[in-house]
């Protein structure tokens, strides 16, 4: 064998040894490596002949066995540690730096879209899904009374009902709950303060499975007449009082009565007493009943009943057990008129009011993500098309499809992750803004914040979206046949992906149509609410509440004298035109109910039970109707000063219509327990529950004749901005009694605004989503048409050269977009139907298939979409046929 032969064998041996090294090292260093060994082989052969050469082979083997795997585990270059993926990552980064517009478009789209999605997800998750922080929360239920014969399906329990429920074999425990505003005083140096107090059975915290963070909770015997005054504070109130751990054992004065602090609840404690009507109520402190529940009036309902079912009880079995208790009560106390008891799961009850709105919001968020996904895929396809030639050349040079697909996927996943991180940031900020915007009665509002889990979820969703969106172009780039790829690249673009892009535009237009129509309907419904006439005029009215502690004003005479003084002092404020007061402000849902009789009224059904309607009764001070601009349809208001023994009442138009029809109710009598009142006026109902619809019938009484409520909300009508009255009003009340607390000071317009906050939030969010979707699909269309103009440049140039004028070619290109739009609208139509059925429940005064709204949405969408086609299509005007054709 000659030397050349030996050197040939050497080289094959060294090429084999290079395989020990990782591929990227081989690519970069392999040639030099073999070259160097060849040099060494030559030298070895020259100096020591074949034996030296063979020694070199062994030495090279040992070297490669040592260094090859060594390079794999400890690569010289850090980014190579990921092998192929690592190298792809570096190439992807380089490519992204070279295409900043594309990266900005992708990441921006994702950031905004995912941010919006995450805000909605956070709210829906924390309010509807996150478990309540109690032991086995699924076994907790509120129980309500259904008075079937007066159509009052959700009434408070009687105290005796709670006692009866405890005897049921499937009930592990039952507590009654009451709630009221109380005045907290007796702290040195602190102004008297109004706060929310829960009054409960001592077993409440054991029932929930909650322990005190400091001190203890109630003992079973700490209830009933003569019980020691004990109070458990929430963390919030404890912080407000100075957060001292020595507070346990000290005395606080609640409404003037001393109460000993026995414990403080943990920071994460959340609880609300659900209401018969109106939103759930939270409290800052808890105390126990100063009476025995078994001794309360079995007829009256005044307690929220919370029960815990025995472990393993099914909801149906529990409902039956509760109903059985109800049947006994109906027979014993209600002469079998039809009183029913029924349980509602704690969470279900808590979120029932907001569930429809939140679900619609969740659906809208999901739709937005779909639109987003399609947009990302479109962007990536456009990008893939731009890189078509690059792909074609890479494939021609031997890059395999898998490597190209991997690069596409990596790029998309990386962008998705970036966008997800941006989305999480936007969400953290957006959620905070949303909490500020949200109605205060949104349950579990304090809980709503982005946590790490949610941020991680959003980033994962971003990466997943990126990967899914990247899958399409990746799939396309592997499937492309090489010849087709090269051929289409040779004629500047075009190829199999354009159909995919067109179908994506169709999907996008369809999704946008659904989202836009939903948004438009909800915004219109909100507009209806804003225009609703609630039966009073909130403008220029300031409201405030002054609780009257029974300990300081123990009887009606002194309480009335106090109210008279407050009224005259408030009326003396300069600029105040009218002053009144009421036991429950409009839209507060806070009125008490009772049954009354209208003897001899023509509207009586003649059935003794049904002749006793359940009404909301409101106790007013004279001047109330004037201050709130409540309209009199007939009769008159109460005179300013009371003529003893007149016993006058005012009814609203719904009662007048139901019981008196076309006859005038003036002068007719109302039987109220054993009392008889004369109707002197009929007013348009000042709505107590919803701005847009009448509630239960209302009857108004004079406060100085019937002091059912010691605490009144005052209304001050003036020509001045309402808030400017606050200092003078507070000073006036402090002058009368410095121990009186003042609370809920706000303009009546704010009360109205607050009652619409949930709807406003829905309208803002869904409107925003819909506009986002519109923008995204316009961008998609723009891209498709722009791409099409570039791709068909040659063809269009030929048409122009053959005599078509620019307008004709323009029509051709825009027509292509218009067909896609029309197809999208067609595809979206059934979606409108489905979405309409889903949102029916949250719409007010607008049909989910309102033809006017839907037509306007479709037209608007089509116009925007056409504009998105027309702008890039105008580029055909720039085609110079002669030059274009020469270029080819």
């Amino acid at each position: 064998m000659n030397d050349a032969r030996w050197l040939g064998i050497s080289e094959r041996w060294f090429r084999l040894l290079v395989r020990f090294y990782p591929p990227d090292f081989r690519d970069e260093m392999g040639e030099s490596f073999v070259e160097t060994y060849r040099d060494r082989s030559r030298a070895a052969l020259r100096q020591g002949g074949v034996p030296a050469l063979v020694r070199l082979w062994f030495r090279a083997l040992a070297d490669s066995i040592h260094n090859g795997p060594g390079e794999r585990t400890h690569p010289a270059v850090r980014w190579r540690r990921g092998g192929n993926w690592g190298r792809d990552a570096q190439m992807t980064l380089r490519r992204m730096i070279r295409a900043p517009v594309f990266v900005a478009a992708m990441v921006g789209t994702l950031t905004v879209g995912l941010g919006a999605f995450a805000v909605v997800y956070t709210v829906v998750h924390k309010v509807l899904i996150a478990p309540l922080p109690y032991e086995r929360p699924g076994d907790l239920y509120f129980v309500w009374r259904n008075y079937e014969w007066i159509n009052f399906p959700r009434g408070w329990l009687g105290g005796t009902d709670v006692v009866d429920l405890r005897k049921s074999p499937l009930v592990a425990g039952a507590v009654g709950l009451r709630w009221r505003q109380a005045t907290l005083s007796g702290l040195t140096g602190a102004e008297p303060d109004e706060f929310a107090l829960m009054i409960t059975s001592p077993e409440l915290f054991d029932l929930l499975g909650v322990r005190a963070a400091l001190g203890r909770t109630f003992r079973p015997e700490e209830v009933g007449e003569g019980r020691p005054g004990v109070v458990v504070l929430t963390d919030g109130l404890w912080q407000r009082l100075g957060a001292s751990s020595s507070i346990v054992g000290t005395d606080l004065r609640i409404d003037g009565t001393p109460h000993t602090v026995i414990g403080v609840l943990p920071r994460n404690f959340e609880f609300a007493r659900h209401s018969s009507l109106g939103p759930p109520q939270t409290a800052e402190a808890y105390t126990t009943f100063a009476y025995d529940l078994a001794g309360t009036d079995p007829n009256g309902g005044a307690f929220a009943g919370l029960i815990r079912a025995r472990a393993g009880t099914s909801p149906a079995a529990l409902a039956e057990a509760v109903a059985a208790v109800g049947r006994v009560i109906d027979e014993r106390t209600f002469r079998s008129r039809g009183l029913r008891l029924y349980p509602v799961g704690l969470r279900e009850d808590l979120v029932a009011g907001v569930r429809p709105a939140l679900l619609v919001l969740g659906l809208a968020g999901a739709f937005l993500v779909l639109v987003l996904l399609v947009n990302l895929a479109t962007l990536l396809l456009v990008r893939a098309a731009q890189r078509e030639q690059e792909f074609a050349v890479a494939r021609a040079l031997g890059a395999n499809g898998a490597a190209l697909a991997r690069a596409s996927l990596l790029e998309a996943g990386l962008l998705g992750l970036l966008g997800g991180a941006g989305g999480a940031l936007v969400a953290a900020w957006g959620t905070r803004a949303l909490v500020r915007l949200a109605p205060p009665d949104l349950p579990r509002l304090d809980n709503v914040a982005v946590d790490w889990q949610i941020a991680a979820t959003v980033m994962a969703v971003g990466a997943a979206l990126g990967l899914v969106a990247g899958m399409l172009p990746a799939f396309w780039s592997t499937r492309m046949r090489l010849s087709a790829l090269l051929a289409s690249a040779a004629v500047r673009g075009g190829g199999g992906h354009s159909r995919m892009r067109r179908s994506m535009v169709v999907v996008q237009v369809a999704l946008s149509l659904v989202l836009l129509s939903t948004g438009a309907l909800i915004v219109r419904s909100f507009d209806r609410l804003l225009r609703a006439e609630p039966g009073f005029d909130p403008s220029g009215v300031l409201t405030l509440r002054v609780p009257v502690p029974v300990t300081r004003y123990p009887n009606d005479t002194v309480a009335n004298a106090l109210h008279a003084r407050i009224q005259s002092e408030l009326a003396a404020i300069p600029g105040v035109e009218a002053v009144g007061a009421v036991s429950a402000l409009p839209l507060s849902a806070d009125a008490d109910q009772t049954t009354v009789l209208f003897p001899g009224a023509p509207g009586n059904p003649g059935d003794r039970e049904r002749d006793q309607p359940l009404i909301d009764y409101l106790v007013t001070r004279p001047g109330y109707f004037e201050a709130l601009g409540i309209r009199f349809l007939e009769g008159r208001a109460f005179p300013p000063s009371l003529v003893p023994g007149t016993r006058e009442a005012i009814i609203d138009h719904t009662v007048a219509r139901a019981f008196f029809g076309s006859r005038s109710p003036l002068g007719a009598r109302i039987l109220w327990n054993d009392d008889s009142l004369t109707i002197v006026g009929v007013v348009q109902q000042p709505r107590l529950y919803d701005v847009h619809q009448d509630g239960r019938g209302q009857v108004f009484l004079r406060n100085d004749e019937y002091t059912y409520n010691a605490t009144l909300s005052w209304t001050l009508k003036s020509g001045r901005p309402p808030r400017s009255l606050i200092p003078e009003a507070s000073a006036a009340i402090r002058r009368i009694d410095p121990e009186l607390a003042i609370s809920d000071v706000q303009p009546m317009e704010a009360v109205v605004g607050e009652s619409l906050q949930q709807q406003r939030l829905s309208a803002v969010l869904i409107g925003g989503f819909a506009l986002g979707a519109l923008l995204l699909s316009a961008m998609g269309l723009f891209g498709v048409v722009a791409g099409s103009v570039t791709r068909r440049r040659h063809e269009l140039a030929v048409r122009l050269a053959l005599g078509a004028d620019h307008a004709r070619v323009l029509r051709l290109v825009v027509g292509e977009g218009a067909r896609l739009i029309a197809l999208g609208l067609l595809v979206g139509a059934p979606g409108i139907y489905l979405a309409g059925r889903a949102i029916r429940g949250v719409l007010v005064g607008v049909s989910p298939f309102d033809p006017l709204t839907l037509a306007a949405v479709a037209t608007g969408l089509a116009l925007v979409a056409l504009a998105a086609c027309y702008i890039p299509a105008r580029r055909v005007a720039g085609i110079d046929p002669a030059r274009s054709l020469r270029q080819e």
Partner: protein
Amino acid sequence: MGMDRERRTEPTPLRPVEFHILLSLAAGERHGYGIIQDAEARGETLDVGTLYRALARMTEQGFIGASARRPAADTGDERRNYYRITPRGLRVAQAEARRVAALADAARSCGLLKGATT
């Protein structure tokens, strides 16, 4: 970061192969085999794999760089990659040389090594 910078300005002691590379390149640009030949002239044999891993690592660290220029004598062989030392590599080599010289002085002063003190 701070730690990293510390280590980069004072990277001594170097591995033997790294010092050999810097010694060779300090004299002028070399390809891989040239570095091996230089090391053999100093009485040490470098393994090719060890050499190329060190070259890749030191390129990454910025001690050496690939040379664009080819020495006139080698124009015939285009496949060879030539390396040159960077200013940073030079500083590192100087630091290492001082360290080795100090060790050699110490060895002399306790009689382990014969010869004049530098």
